[in-house]
């Protein structure tokens, strides 16, 4: 039983990070019909911004983390939207999908060529101290990751539900045309979602890199996890993405322990296929009725 609880807790920790990536994924989809295949790379990159800031500029980690978030907002938010998404939005979804796949390739190989092909150690906010809670050893860093991720999610939920801008963003996400008629500055709201996505990705990056080590290929796994989390939870709901992220994290851990380590990756994907077959709107998603 102790083993089970521990598996669930560690699953929630990684799941919370998946959720950060998955939320951004659904936000982009809702506001701009962007299926971002580079989402994993968006989580991979900010760690290297931080590393560069530390190693090249000689900044301390806390400052470097801020630099990483700022650069992410600029590059993965503003630049990504204006340079990649905006020119393509009229061409339909497929060219945009292709383009984000190319962006993923670009970021991955860019980091590999410019920084390093090898994994880099990455500092952690909280030290790796082990404390014993109720007889189970728990690492402080793990609790720290969980706390930060949940705090960021709570802050985001508070922002979306509790502020005027947040509600305008939600209106934009639900129906841009109606939002525009109601006087919501839709363009600005769309830009905000890209900025929020970049920020969430940067936070996820800073949280996950001490565990994963910073490496150019980290995005492959993270992207897949965020993708599965978003669809399983419900493509059109932020809380769906949160639930999906936590669920995927826990399911992945339990699968590794109790199903088969060799097929652990298969379990979340099987979940994805089942959801598509039997509940295409996702666990918490709203049903969308459309002609054909």
């Amino acid at each position, binding site marked *: 039983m102790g*083993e089970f609880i*521990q*598996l669930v807790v*560690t*699953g929630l*920790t*990684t799941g919370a990070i998946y959720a950060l990536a998955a939320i951004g994924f659904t936000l982009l989809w809702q506001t701009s019909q962007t299926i971002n295949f580079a989402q994993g790379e968006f989580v991979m990159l900010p760690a290297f911004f931080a590393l560069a800031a530390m190693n090249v500029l000689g900044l301390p980690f806390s400052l470097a983390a801020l630099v990483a978030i700022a650069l992410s907002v600029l590059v993965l938010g503003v630049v990504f939207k204006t340079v990649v998404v905006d020119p393509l939005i009229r061409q339909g979804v497929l060219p945009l999908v292709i383009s984000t796949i190319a962006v993923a390739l670009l970021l991955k190989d860019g980091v*590999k060529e410019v920084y390093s*092909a*090898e*994994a*880099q*150690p990455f500092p952690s906010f909280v030290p*790796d101290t*082990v404390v*014993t809670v109720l007889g189970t*050893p728990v*690492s402080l*860093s*793990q609790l720290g990751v969980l706390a930060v991720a949940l705090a960021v999610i709570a802050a985001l939920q508070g922002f979306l539900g509790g502020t005027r801008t947040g509600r305008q963003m939600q209106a934009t996400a639900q129906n841009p045309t109606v939002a525009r008629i109601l006087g919501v500055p839709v363009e600005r709201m769309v830009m905000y979602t890209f900025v929020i996505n970049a920020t969430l990705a940067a936070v996820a990056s800073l949280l*996950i890199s001490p*565990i*994963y*080590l910073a*490496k150019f*290929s*980290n995005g*492959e*796994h993270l992207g897949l996890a965020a993708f599965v989390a978003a669809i399983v939870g419900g493509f059109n709901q932020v809380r769906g993405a949160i639930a999906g992220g936590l669920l995927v994290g826990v399911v*992945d*851990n*339990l699968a*590794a*322990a109790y199903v088969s*380590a*060799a097929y*652990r*990756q298969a379990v979340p994907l099987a979940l994805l296929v089942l959801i598509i077959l039997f509940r295409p709107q996702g666990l918490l998603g709203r049903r969308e009725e459309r002609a054909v």
Partner: protein
Amino acid sequence: MKSTRLVTALAAAGLVAAAPAVAQQTVKFPNIIELSGAGATVGTNWRNGVELAVSEINAAGGILGRKIVTEHVDTQSNPGTARAAIQRALDDNPVVIFGPIYSGSVKATMQLTADAGVPQIIGGEAADLTAQGSKFIFRTSFGQNVSMPKLANYLRDEVKAKSVAVIYVNNDFGKGGRDAIMKELQARNIKVAADLSTESGQADFAADVIKIKAANADAVFVYLNEEESARFLREVKKQGVSLPLVGETTLLGQKVIDLAGDAANGVRGHVGLTVDAPVPAMQEFGRKFQAKYNYKPDHNGVKGYIAPYMVKAAAEKAGKLDPKAIASALHGLTITPDKTPGILIEATWDTTGEIDRISFLAEVQNGKQVITKTLPKLKP
């Protein structure tokens, strides 16, 4: 009269050999290795080792008067790409081919070099590579068929483990090692308490460590690639596991120590090659490598370094730079550091291309690999 004859002879030689004469100043060694993908660390070490040795050999006049030119080709850690690259290299009728290091890539390519009759000096350690009857495969390090028995002895005699949890990476390297160690553990009546497969490139080892804790073994045998080893060790520390962690060469390598930090302390096991070995030539190599590339080489750096020296010794024994002659010269050859200093440690190749030399038991203490014991050659 005498001088005319000399002139005619020179002219004749010139006529026959004028064009190839320029080419004969150099000899090309294609080096087909893992420079990107999962094997990037491994391949980069090997490449730097090769480059260092080649620059030394060239500075000393080359092999049989010919300077070496190396061409590094990336296999992307992919056997199919490796096969194509070797095919391409063979089109130029090379004297020898270096690489690949990943056993899967070696397996995919060894038939090609065997058909072409070109010696292939590999970094692969899978047990069965030398058992396929190729006369042109030569190892630079122990195969798992040699290292795993040594490691199993270590587990039995030094760690005194009655049961062992095995965690391995599910690729050609890890799977081969896992199969080899299983056989050896069984032969020594050591119980396998857990047998955990992990992904190549796996980032999250939380579930695996939890399972290991639950397995209640006396020791853990860790057979993962560098980065995965580091992630695993960090997770072990995070979860407060205090079992003996035992590994083979990779786990005690510098890259793992760099990446895992504190978490690597206390890790121990068998090491085939290391620059921390109590052998002056080896330590000297480590210093030269560090000076040139600014990091400490791992065993793959050593493997790459000795490869050109193997060819040099064999070619000098054969008296010519000819692929078949080099291959047959290497069979049964013992290369000693006093004649060929670049070989670093005396080594012998048998007729299957298997290597024999001394090896070491080691432990990581305070972020450094420390040799605790030297194991003799199998056939001294």
